[in-house]
């Protein structure tokens, strides 16, 4: 490393210095182009073919998309993703912010409490799913616990109710991720300039008002990071669904990622699976790109 520095005065090495940043970035660029976009392109191509068990390249035009839109299960899965993603992200943010603000009040044993809130994030979704599947199990789980404790008429059977099962996924996912959101916001709160707050206090503003009007609005970038990570988890929640409900009862808790996986790999409908993957990516693009764009734009100015 340092040997380069010693000889930078020589002119061919000067040129090298100018190229170094690009050279260093080159492998990653290659990885991204091939491993992300090349593969997406390949999937895009497959979605126009009649691929079944294995990839084939017989062109069928938009037929797979047509079939996808005619498929009831696809619509259930898409609707579920919206319900799940929306609720999961909103509730995690609200719970996370609330806990962070509460923890910011000079709480005793803050470190212990923080660790308790944060630890679920360390577990894999498979473990979370297995644990919650059991907790929410009607007959064995919380249902039985509360009846054993004397609440006779208690009945909690969302896990087996096609109407409510998707909310069970939300509960488990919020449990896992909200502590992490708390950590992000707590970190943000700690970096807020204290003099502004003190000034507001002198002006007689109430504590909730100070948080709502002054502190939280200044945490925009934290909000952005939290949203990125939550959206990442929502889209990847395949493991959670697989271990908790496997899409059931019926296919009422199916998500697009499950749909895509089942059709591509277990049902020999690779073309249809590819089409569903492309629609999923399209939806993610439509939501994220404007947001990412504005964020990146804003950053360039500072």
């Amino acid at each position, binding site marked *: 490393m340092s040997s380069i520095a010693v000889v930078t005065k020589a002119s061919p090495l000067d040129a090298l210095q100018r190229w170094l940043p690009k050279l260093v970035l080159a492998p990653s660029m290659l990885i991204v182009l091939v491993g992300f976009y090349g593969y997406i392109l390949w999937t895009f191509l497959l979605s126009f073919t009649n691929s*079944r*068990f*294995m*990839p084939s390249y017989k062109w069928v035009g938009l037929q797979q998309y047509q*079939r996808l839109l*005619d*498929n*009831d*299960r696809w619509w259930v899965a898409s609707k579920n993703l919206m319900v799940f993603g929306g609720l999961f992200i909103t509730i995690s943010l609200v719970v996370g912010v609330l806990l962070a603000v509460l923890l910011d009040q000079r709480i005793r044993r803050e470190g212990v409490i923080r660790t308790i809130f944060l630890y679920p994030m360390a577990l894999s979704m498979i473990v979370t799913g297995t644990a919650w*599947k059991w907790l929410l*199990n*009607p*007959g064995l789980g919380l249902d039985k616990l509360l009846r054993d404790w004397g609440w006779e008429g208690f009945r909690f*059977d969302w*896990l*087996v*109710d*096609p109407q409510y*099962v998707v909310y069970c996924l939300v509960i488990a996912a919020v449990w896992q991720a909200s502590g992490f959101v708390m950590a992000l916001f707590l970190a943000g709160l700690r970096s807020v300039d204290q003099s502004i707050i003190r000034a507001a206090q002198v002006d007689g503003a109430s504590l909730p008002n100070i948080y709502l009007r002054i502190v939280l609005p200044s945490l925009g970038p934290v909000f952005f990071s939290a949203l990125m990570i939550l959206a990442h988890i929502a889209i990847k929640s395949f493991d959670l669904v697989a271990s908790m*409900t*496997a899409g*059931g*009862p*019926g*296919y*009422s808790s199916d998500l697009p990622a499950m749909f895509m*996986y*089942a*059709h591509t*790999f*277990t*049902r*020999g*409908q690779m073309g249809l699976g590819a089409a569903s993957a492309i629609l999923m990516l399209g939806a993610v693009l439509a939501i994220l790109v404007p947001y990412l764009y504005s964020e990146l734009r804003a950053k360039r100015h500072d």
Partner: protein
Amino acid sequence: MNAMTRLATAVSLVSLMPLAALAGEVEVLHWWTSGGEKRAADTLQKLVEDKGHTWKDFAVAGGGGEAAMTVLKTRAVSGNPPAAAQIKGPDIQEWGALGLLANLDSVAEQNQWDTLLPKQVAEIMTYEGHYVAVPVNVHRVNWLWINPEVFAKAGATPPTTLDEFFAAADKLKAAGFIPLAHGGQPWQDGTVFEDLALSILGADAFRKAFVDLDEATLTGDQMVEVFAALNKLRGYVDADAAGRDWNIATGLVINGKAGMQLMGDWAKSEWTAAGKVAGKDYQCLAFPGTQGSFAFNIDSLAMFKLGDAENRKAQEDLARTVLEPEFQQFFNQNKGSIPVRLDQDMSSFDACAQKSMADFKEAAGNGGLQPSMAHGMAASSYVQGAVFDVVTNFFNDPQADPKRAAQQLAAAIQAVQ
């Protein structure tokens, strides 16, 4: 000692001699990962290793082989499939059509598979007339499992017709038992649907609907009747069934909370593990109305083309070993199924297995052998998946309309072809 067991001993003695000159490696992708199945798979491993080969275990559990199929596809795409993989039914044809499967004709000829195996089974194991896979066992799907003690308490009698079945269920319900132990997973819903279909449609129409995928049969009045029966049957399942594993459901029958279960004969391993005796502590009946039929589910190992000659030898030895009587007996006694060899000595099997074998032979003779749709024997996995979607959605929808369901079934099958 009859001739067969003597032969078996001879074969296993030969197999003990390591053929060091031709020692290859055989990688086997399977999902026999639990209890009796795992013991059975370990035996196969030992028998193959006794022949001097190396066994590379490639177990992927989960979802009745769904995870394993994903892995297999990615392995095939990457250009190095395992030597053998647990693939069954019409899916073998799909893999054959891709040109990936090895030709086992020489092993088959040496060991007279043509005479050992029933014709219907041999057909599944061949692609364009060549053996590409070896069958491991035969499961019967259309069984009704009964706890006689519960039946006695409720004053119900073991049913032989569908009407009697519902009558017995009513009595069980009135006596405060769960009439039917069920787990609400798509394949279990599919299994129940299939039993009802076989009972109501009869063998010929069943075949027409699920093998030939004939639209008139799929939307016909009888199919509407099947869905109506499924709707009725749901009333006898407890509210907590959704997502329940089948063996938990079997547990409900074993410990007397439920009266019956519709399940393939792998359920027997649960009864055996609980120390119960077939014919005494529990009864196995053909599902009411399907007495002459045998809905079969055959596990098989398909063999992939390999480059290395020694590995090919190991692969052939594996194929040979699977059909040896010794392995057939041990494996099937652990798994609850029956041997696929028609000449197997059944004296050490339990009552249910003996009855199963007798029915299998009879059905093989008179055309009563039916491929199980719910277990991927009747049609390829895409048709199976389409049927599951419709059936499981119907089963979980309180407002479901049988007539509409039959239309949806035909449409869904049409859409994936």
